[in-house]
């Protein structure tokens, strides 16, 4: 399949597809980070994670519409404010959901899966009723438009670059927070040994709620970033949920580095193969490989060794 292309063409193809893969990677990482915190740290399967992301995207869309309407002069900076809004709204909803549903189900992880699936159906229908079934998109501010030409055949869109930069910042931020901050330390303590953590005075219920809210908040930011590169519809979130779960499981559920590494592998494999094979075949091959590797190594690529 490589024979039909010259060497320079191949280089360009790999560069372009690699870049497309990096954008996919950003979406995966942003979604998977939240999921890795919720699933990896708390063991809760949040099937509504995609809908939390889409909520962030809708909040961003609303903010951008408001800015276009009332504050057109500073439209260029709407994104940063939208991102904060998205985080606050989704984190608040996350905390509410944790309080209303998840905390009753910690002992039954398979049941959280069903309950959150129900939640995702409700949220989808809610979005459809409020925003309509059609996809909505934001108008990008001028400084995110256009692309940066590396040479004749390679062009890199600026919004893609921006999203990637954002991904790096958020990933580093989350990693630092999990390692250094009080909440991060408490979360890890609760994950590793809940009774002991409670015994040394950590309010485990509060930590659970904060962790869940934080995971959802990151999903909201992911949704915010998602508006930069695609349009938002009521069911957009569901498209990514299976992939994202595979990313998290493949990387090793409680390891952030593993999540990033597996998101990178999966997205690059998929987008590179997409060019040479049809999209569906590429996807099938990628998923099959991941499932195959998971069967050989169920604990994922990077796993935390804890004595339970």
């Amino acid at each position, binding site marked *: 399949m490589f024979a039909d292309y010259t060497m320079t063409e191949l280089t360009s193809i790999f560069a372009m597809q690699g870049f497309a893969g990096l954008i996919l990677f950003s979406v995966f990482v942003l979604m998977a980070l939240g999921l890795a915190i919720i699933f990896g740290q708390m*063991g809760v*399967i949040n099937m509504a994670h995609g809908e939390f992301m889409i909520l962030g995207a809708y909040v961003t869309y609303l903010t951008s519409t408001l800015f276009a309407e009332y504050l057109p002069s500073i439209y260029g900076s709407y994104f940063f404010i939208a991102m904060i809004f998205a985080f606050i709204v989704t984190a608040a909803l996350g905390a509410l959901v944790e309080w209303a*549903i998840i905390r*009753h*189900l910690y*002992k*039954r*992880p*398979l*049941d959280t*899966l*069903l*309950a959150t*699936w*129900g*939640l*995702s*159906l*409700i*949220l*989808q*229908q*809610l979005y*459809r*009723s409020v925003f309509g079934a059609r996809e909505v998109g934001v108008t990008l501010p001028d400084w995110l438009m256009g692309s940066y030409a590396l040479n004749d055949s390679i062009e890199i869109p600026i919004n893609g670059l921006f999203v990637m930069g954002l991904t790096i910042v958020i990933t580093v931020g989350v990693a630092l927070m999990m390692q250094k901050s009080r909440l991060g330390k408490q979360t890890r303590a609760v994950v590793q040994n809940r009774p002991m953590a409670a015994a040394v005075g950590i309010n485990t219920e509060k930590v659970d709620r904060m962790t869940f809210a934080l995971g959802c908040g990151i999903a909201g930011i992911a949704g915010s970033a998602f508006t930069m590169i695609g349009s938002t519809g009521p069911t957009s979130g569901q498209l990514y949920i*299976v992939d994202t*779960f*595979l990313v998290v*499981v493949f990387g090793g559920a409680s390891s952030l580095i593993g999540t990033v590494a597996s998101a990178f592998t999966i997205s690059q494999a998929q987008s590179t193969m997409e060019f040479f094979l*049809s*999209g*569906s*075949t590429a*996807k*099938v091959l990628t*998923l*099959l490989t*991941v*499932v195959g590797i*998971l*069967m*050989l190594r*169920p604990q994922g690529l990077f796993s935390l060794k804890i004595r339970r």
Partner: protein
Amino acid sequence: MTKIKDFIGRYQLSHLLILAVILLVVMPLAMDIFRLNLVGKYLTYAFVALGLVLCWGYGGILSLGQGVFFGLGGYCMAMFLKLEASSPEHTAIQSTPGIPDFMDWNQLTALPWFWEPFHSFGFTLLAVVLVPALFAFIIGVAMFKRRVSGVYFAIITQAIAAILTILIIGQQGYTGGVNGITDLRTLNGWDIRTDSAKYILYFINAFLLIGCLIAARYIIKSKLGRLLVAMREREDRVRFSGYDVSSFKIFIYCVAAVFSAIGGAMFTLQVGFMSPSFVGIVPSIEMVIFCAVGGRLSILGAVYGTLLVNWAKTSFSESFPELWLFAMGALFIGVVMAFPNGLAGLYQTYVEPRLQRFRKPAPVASQSQVVSLEAGKTATTTNSADKEYSHAGNQ
């Protein structure tokens, strides 16, 4: 006479008899053929729900990919019917007569090799059972031997459902793509679209379901059933007692797959087409909710749950289409949080004690045996009823 009573008591057949009467007598008399066909369609989902009761309720293995097996069974049957519908005389206008129409549209000029054996009805019937069983066996061996379980198993089966859907949609020329295999007409020359054929298919379907229910009851009552419950509660202890846990899991997973596949094949026969929309993630999870509503530990509950949810779905989406997803979502959350034992749990808590009081002075102990999953006790839902019937048998 006592022997028969004993037999009925041991396998708790009286409830099954009631269900059989409802399915075989009440439904056909009360409904016109359109509604009955609809019920028949719902009942095919009950096969899947029944399989889930075995592997999820008893075995503790939640598979989110049962649609895969439903689809495999359905597609096997659909391939046979499609080949019969595309005889050279019927497809004379195509550029290659004698192959299914969607292959012709996709510029295929010969029948793919894996379609060839489906000319034979005997092979098709075998394939309906064996292909999904083999597939489940491979998945089961790969996963359970490596001790993949719980949440991870659920996610991986879900991924498998996604893979199969993408594959079917992507390989249009071989599978009919997103439309599926449509326009099915005859089964060995017998037109399945007529009203009389629909009646007959409904009864075949109902009998098959009752057969599967008896088989499931037998499995649950056997030592295997006890072991499954033990495994669900304390897998390590069963392993330390010298049992090979993975083989039991593989077996029950295969049984669930075969049940689903039979349902799928009957679906194709009754509805007249098969498409990837019954294979993917969404239908697979919906099938789990049928099982959960009925009660994940009750095989009869699976049938009632499936009928109830589907009836609600049909009537809701006829009158308030936009409300249906809200109702469905609320159902998921409500069942999980408030009624983890579903309809069967409600029946045992509220109806059965009254029935018992009505029949004879109730043994007080049997009431306290109503088990809740939340308490984390070993749930043996059938115990109370069992005792009652064995009392009756001994008189």
